[in-house]
């Protein structure tokens, strides 16, 4: 049999490895052909590798070829192998070809490569870790392993794309990679060129279309944990603790003011990313940092850890200056105005800051300048001249996005100062042809300006040492680890820390008097100065790494500032700063499968949430329920209604209300006597397990997952009531009435436990339940690790009333309309019809919390400007794939013919006009699909 291969075709790897493993190598005659050679006579598109059998049949599918080799060696087909191979071709390959194309042909790195395949990698990892042996099928490596290994090898041979979190996948991959057939295949395919070996082949292949994304999921990742069987011991412990009652609670520690670290205690310092002052935060911002941090802060206090939770507004920067100009106010007035707006939004959301400060304070200047002087005197700063565009009329240097001109590469007329939207190339603003100030349309001039740079390369070694120590034993989220690692892998470059602006912290250095610090340099210092405004003993928190554990919450676009830039400044300043111990970054929250957009009025913003009539606790619950933890998620009105009505009303609210009502109705408001049966004891043990799970998850800051534990306990509770029917038994004999009492008593105690577990998530509802149940204050402030009887027999409860209200369909529909959900859906629908695959999910779902633009000495800067991303995302230039363009081109031609024919026939004028309108519409769609600007005038001229 003859095997046709083409140099660098990824399919060669599994085929050669399978031939080696199945002992078919000797029977093969291998011919190398060009990548575009049509070996199989009946296939229009070339496909390689191909196996031509002695019967003249062709196998053109890589996995069929591998399968054939194994079949020849006597292997029998089985369901599990079939399933893996089917998954490989339908799920893995489409994702993998996008990742490989991005990596090999487009030279992209990091998330651009990993994110298309992440789901698939996790799927393999989970499947492997569920099995007790390190292979996919059976107990040694077989067909499925070889096929998947071969498919994944080009990507995973670079350890960057094999994250440590996927330990089982890592082990599997390494085990296979050292097998002889695999090694031989690698040698003959890669020819020691690494990934580049695939380049020229892949360049000749059509660009893979992005597989249709699954809709972002709000349901938890499937985690099929085997049902835990309770041991006798666990039951005994649960019962013992239950019987100890309130004595089992730890003693309450009083809260000090100000909160300061205490030696020998767990001192937890929590910060939330500082929201940028000129924007009203939207729901994505709120769940991304302040609300997530709040849940953890509340949990931390419930654990009696010594907790300080801080945040504040980030106020300096160009964006503030621009906003001030727009509104005709001074920058200070803008900051004052928006600071108040932010503060009141967070108050409404019940965010439990110990202090909510701001960055425009004298202490900010003092601390920033101190760190600066220390860096300067230790030689970690560089001076360099930077050429910049300056608008003489506006008397300002133009930040990259304040200048527009003709792209030097493709001639596109509206290229921005940092990047061209048409060709996507990065541009140095001074290279733009015919640059224009975006504000006054004057032509700017090139002026050189001296700037200071933080010498990150010089600090890189210290940073790596610190990261090495910190990452090993901490709870950084996987995305934070990944982003940080990719920054280090690309090598750090010096970063400019000064700007030609007025609104900022002044630079205390000769020759720099008219400059200020760049926001990203001093914004992270904001945490320190905000603490200093809270207490003059701020250094006990911030220069105390041995006693303080620092948790920092943010959305993933802010990670580099917190994991690389600020730590470098702090390490270089050599002043024993407290550095982040746990960096908790979320993914993005979409709005109804689109993105939040202030300019288009799409989405719910903090101040509007208050006017919906939906209580803040419901907002908190839903946002936390869909928290983008580990993957993007989306806000949806219908889903909000569903979760409110099913989880809150029918599950949680129903259980707590019934438990309380039974006490009131059947026992005069007095908790009845409880005699536990073995079934009750098992229930207590089950709840204890669920409570342990809740603690474990929250200690790892898996906020969304821990919320599920609360709902599970209340589901147990509803079942318990349903099975035992206390409302029937209360009318029965003595034993029945006793049983009704026990069930009611246990249920109302579960409600008490739930009220405390719920406190971090829904503080108002939690207090309401506790008032209804008259839970003793000592019990309200501490969440024990086990489940004691909080409300003993004889305890008098208060007045019970329903906790939640049903959300009605028409109410939700009208909110949807009001907040643009409806419009958005329409426009999305339209897009879906026209470009079934063009609706790309843009990674930029919300406005960055850190204003300002960054430039560096290194020209090929890999850092994506947060704001640049936003404006790009909002520009209507999503480029459709070639197939759609072709479809539209065909439609335009067809419609053009219709119009011509009608005109030739001198048809009715109205009819012609109608058809012309259709034609113009199609042309517009085509222009949009090709990413061209819309030219309305073109159509007119033609007439």
């Amino acid at each position, binding site marked *: 049999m003859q095997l046709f291969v083409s140099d660098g075709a990824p399919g060669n790897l599994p085929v050669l490895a399978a031939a080696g493993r199945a002992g078919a190598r000797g029977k093969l005659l291998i011919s190398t052909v060009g990548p575009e050679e049509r070996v199989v006579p*009946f296939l229009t598109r070339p496909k390689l590798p191909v196996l031509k059998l002695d019967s003249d049949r062709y196998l053109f599918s890589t996995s069929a070829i591998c*399968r054939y080799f194994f*079949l020849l060696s006597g292997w029998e087909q089985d369901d599990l192998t079939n399933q893996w191979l089917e998954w490989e071709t339908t799920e893995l390959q489409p994702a993998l070809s996008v990742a490989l194309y991005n990596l090999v042909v487009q030279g992209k790195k990091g998330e651009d490569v990993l994110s298309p395949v992440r789901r698939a990698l996790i799927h393999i990892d989970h499947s492997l870790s569920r099995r007790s042996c390190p292979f996919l099928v059976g107990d040694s490596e077989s067909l499925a392993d070889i096929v998947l290994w071969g498919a994944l090898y080009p990507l995973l041979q670079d350890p960057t794309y094999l994250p440590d979190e996927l330990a089982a996948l890592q082990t599997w991959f390494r085990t296979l990679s050292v097998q002889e057939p695999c090694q031989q295949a690698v040698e003959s395919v890669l020819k020691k060129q690494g990934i580049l070996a695939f380049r020229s082949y892949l360049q000749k292949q059509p660009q893979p279309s992005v597989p249709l994304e699954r809709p972002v999921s709000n349901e938890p990742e499937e985690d099929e944990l085997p049902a835990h069987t309770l041991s006798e011991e666990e039951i005994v412990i649960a019962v013992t603790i239950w019987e100890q009652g309130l004595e089992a609670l730890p003693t309450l520690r009083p809260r000090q003011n100000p909160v300061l670290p205490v030696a020998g205690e767990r001192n937890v310092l929590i910060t939330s990313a500082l929201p940028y002052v000129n924007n009203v935060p939207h729901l994505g911002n709120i769940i991304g940092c302040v609300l997530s941090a709040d849940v953890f802060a509340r949990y931390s206090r419930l654990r009696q850890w010594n907790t300080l939770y801080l945040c504040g507004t980030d106020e300096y920067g160009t964006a503030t200056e621009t906003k001030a100009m727009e509104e005709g106010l001074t920058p200070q007035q803008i900051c004052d105005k928006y600071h108040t707006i932010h503060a009141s939004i967070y108050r409404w959301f019940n965010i439990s800051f110990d202090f909510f400060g701001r960055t425009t304070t004298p202490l900010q200047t003092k601390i920033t300048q101190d760190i600066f002087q220390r860096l300067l005197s230790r030689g970690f700063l560089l001076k360099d001249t930077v050429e910049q565009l300056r608008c003489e009329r506006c008397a300002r240097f133009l930040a990259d996005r304040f200048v527009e001109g003709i792209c030097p590469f493709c001639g596109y007329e509206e290229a921005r100062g940092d990047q061209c939207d048409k060709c996507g190339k990065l541009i140095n603003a001074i290279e733009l042809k015919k640059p224009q100030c975006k504000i006054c349309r004057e032509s700017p001039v090139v002026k050189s300006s001296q700037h200071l740079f933080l010498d990150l390369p010089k600090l890189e070694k210290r940073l790596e040492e610190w990261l090495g120590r910190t990452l090993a034993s901490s709870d950084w989220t996987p995305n934070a680890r990944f982003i940080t690692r990719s920054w280090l892998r690309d090598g750090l470059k010096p970063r400019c820390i000064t700007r030609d602006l007025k609104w900022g912290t002044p630079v205390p250095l000769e020759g720099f008097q008219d400059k200020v610090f760049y926001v990203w340099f001093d914004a992270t210092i904001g945490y320190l100065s905000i603490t200093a405004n809270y207490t003059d003993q701020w250094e006990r928190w911030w220069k105390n790494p041995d006693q303080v554990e620092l948790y920092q919450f943010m959305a993933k676009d802010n990670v580099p500032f917190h994991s690389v830039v600020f730590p470098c400044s702090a390490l270089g300043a050599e002043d024993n700063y407290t550095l982040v111990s746990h960096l908790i970054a979320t993914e993005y929250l979409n709005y109804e499968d689109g993105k939040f957009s202030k300019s288009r009025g799409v989405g719910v913003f903090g101040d509007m949430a208050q006017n919906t009539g939906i209580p803040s606790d419901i907002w908190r619950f839903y946002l936390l329920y869909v928290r983008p933890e580990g993957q993007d998620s989306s806000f949806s009105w219908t889903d909000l209604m569903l979760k409110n009505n099913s989880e809150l009303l029918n599950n949680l609210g129903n259980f707590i209300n019934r438990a309380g009502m039974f006490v009131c109705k059947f026992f005069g408001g007095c908790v009845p006597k409880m005699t536990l049966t073995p079934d009750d004891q098992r229930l207590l043990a089950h709840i204890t397990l669920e409570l342990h799970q809740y603690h474990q998850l929250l200690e790892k800051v898996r906020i969304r997952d821990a919320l599920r534990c609360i709902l599970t306990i209340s589901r147990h509770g509803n079942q318990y009531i349903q099975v035992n029917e206390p409302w029937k038994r209360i009318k029965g004999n003595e034993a029945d009435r006793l049983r009704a009492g026990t069930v009611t008593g246990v249920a109302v105690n579960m409600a008490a436990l739930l009220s405390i577990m719920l406190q971090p998530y829904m503080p108002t509802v939690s207090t309401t339940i506790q008032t209804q149940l008259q839970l003793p204050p000592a019990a309200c402030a501490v969440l024990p690790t086990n489940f004691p009887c909080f409300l003993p027999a004889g305890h008098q409860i208060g007045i019970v009333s329903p906790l939640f209200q049903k959300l009605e369909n028409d109410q939700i529909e009208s909110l949807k309309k009001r907040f643009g959900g409806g419009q958005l859906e329409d426009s999305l629908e339209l897009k879906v019809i026209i470009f079934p695959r063009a609706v790309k999910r843009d990674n930029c779902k919300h406005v960055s919390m850190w204003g300002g633009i960054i430039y560096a000495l290194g020209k090929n800067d890999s850092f994506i400007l947060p704001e640049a991303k936003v404006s790009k995302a909002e520009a209507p230039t999503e480029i459709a794939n070639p197939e759609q363009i072709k479809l539209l081109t065909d439609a335009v031609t067809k419609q053009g013919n219709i119009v011509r024919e009608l005109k030739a026939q001198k048809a009715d004028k109205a009819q012609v006009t109608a058809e012309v309108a259709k034609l113009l519409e199609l042309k517009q769609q085509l222009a949009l699909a090709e990413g061209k600007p819309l030219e309305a005038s073109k159509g007119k001229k033609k007439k």
Partner: protein
Amino acid sequence: MAAAEELTLLEKLLGLRRGNKYSAQGDRQIPVLQTNNGPSLTGLATIAAHLVKQANKEHLLGSTAEEKAVVQQWLEYRVTRIDGHSSKEDIRTMLKDLNSYLEDKVYLTGNNFTLADILLYYGLHRFIVDLTFQEKEKYLNVSRWFSHIQHYPGIRQHLSNVVFIKNRLYTNTH
């Protein structure tokens, strides 16, 4: 036709009496079969092969190593190319390729009827139904094969019978 429905047709065709229940996964609605004695199975081709074994009709999966590989290759073609098509152009290419492949064959593996014929028939039905007579004539070999398979006992069930005209209408198209 939803995958679950197709698998039910297949069960009937294979003479399996106890009907299985299928669920669907993800936005592509990939079928999942919960088996009694083991973990669930996911994927149309995987479940179909499983049903064939359950019905003791292994010959439908091919009898030689070569035939088995060819059957699996066409099952893969079904779930990737046919189900994953993204444009009319894709469908045209697919029909063109199949037409050329089937030129010297009665069935997809050559001379034996297999699971590949069944699943390609079910997968292509919705496209073939919409073809014009001119197109059916253009893809003459596909039409011949399809017409043959749809008359195979028990396979068509409630699906519509596609009409092919025996004598050529468009003599100048070839």
